[in-house]
């Protein structure tokens, strides 16, 4: 087995090792952080919302649904005149 292949295998072993190591450490760090945060500041929990897609426009629909309902009603009235 020549040197290039052995270096490739080295990269694979080290690489996957490091990826797992890093993300496992991150799991512990994150869990610990979350526990700590929710113990110290138990206030403002919010449900997980759908992540915005990176390629999606940032323009969100910020109109209050009740306003939409009201406008719809107005349109309805208007049409039935």
């Amino acid at each position, binding site marked *: 087995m020549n040197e290039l292949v052995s270096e*490739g295998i*080295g990269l694979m072993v080290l*690489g996957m090792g490091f990826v797992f*190591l890093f993300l496992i450490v991150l*799991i512990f760090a994150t869990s610990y952080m979350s526990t700590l945060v929710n113990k110290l500041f138990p206030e403002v929990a919010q449900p*997980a919302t759908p992540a915005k897609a990176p390629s999606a426009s940032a323009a969100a629909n910020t109109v209050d649904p009740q306003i939409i309902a009201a406008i719809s009603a107005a349109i309805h009235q208007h049409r039935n005149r």
Partner: protein
Amino acid sequence: MEEKLLNLYHDTGIYQLEFGQAVMMCVGLLLVYLAIKKGFEPLLLLPIGIGAILVNIPGAGFMAAPVYDAAGHMVSPGGLQYYIYHGGIETGLFPLLIFMGVGAMTDFGPMLANPKTLLLGAAAQFGIFATVIGAVLLGAYGIMDFTLADAAAIGIIGGADGPTAIFVASRLAPDLLGAIAVAAYSYMALVPLIQPPIMKALTSNEERAIKMVQLRPVSKTEKIIFPIVVTLLAAAFLPSAAPLLGMFCFGNLMKESGVVDRLSDTAQNALINTVTIFLGLGVGSKLSSEAFLNIETLGILSLGLVAFSIGTATGVLMAKMLNKVSEHPINPLIGAAGVSAVPMAARVANKVGLEANKQNFLLMHAMGPNVAGVIGSAVAAGVMLSYVGG
């Protein structure tokens, strides 16, 4: 004047056009076609395709270097793509700014609600490293002319993350940048075709129908602290990944902190859009016939497909394993989202899940491994830059 007319004729593209340039212009047209008609990641592939057409126009000088006289005055200006490539891609600025913008568009909420899904983002990176082995084997047996740096850059296609692939390729294998970027974005667009057969082959219908428990709510404070934790871990364990992870987390912190909405808005819109246009034109500038029209490109395209497939498979397998040891059930399909390709891969997991069980909404659960995959491939990129570059 006849001489001038002859000059003008000699300046035409028809007179100067080489066969390779003509082929590369067709490749550019194909990318534009795929982007517009097939919806293949148009934000990148449209500018890349146009960039490929422009750079291959003989005599148009889009990639011409500027010429200065001895006193430092400009004798002839450089081409647009020369300035873009050397100013933003060779330096690594554009991929980092894109990563910042993507960070400002990312929601780590689902991942924070279920941190175990980070393991799926780790497992799916096996596609990257298996591909490295494939590439070094092709190189070692003289089939293709790949160095270790080339192999690493090719492997990163399996990370399914455009800016990471471009950042690594610009540092380890600039000559392959064009083919690698095209492969990365093309396969990301093909995720809905590539992944489902693999996902179905590795899971039973019962597994695909598994419903997962609803995610716990995640507090704003957790979301604010998380990017700082990631940055500090990168600083502690893998500084070579810190440019990518640091900028990604900076963008995310701007968004989650809620105190700099002006900056976050610009990072997500005007800034990332501007940089995307330039990044595309700059990547396209590497689609020259010398760099692209050779057997190595075929290798890159094949290996990229292998990388995606293996990453999908190991993600699903890791999810099956986790399902066995976890107290709450885990649907193996969400493992496939670990390759990243945000948010496409998560949507694919959701769709395949719905096919098995019409009440099974996996989207939010798949977003966890999906964004974990971004972190995972940035870590893999850091290891490569440190191992190969150092």
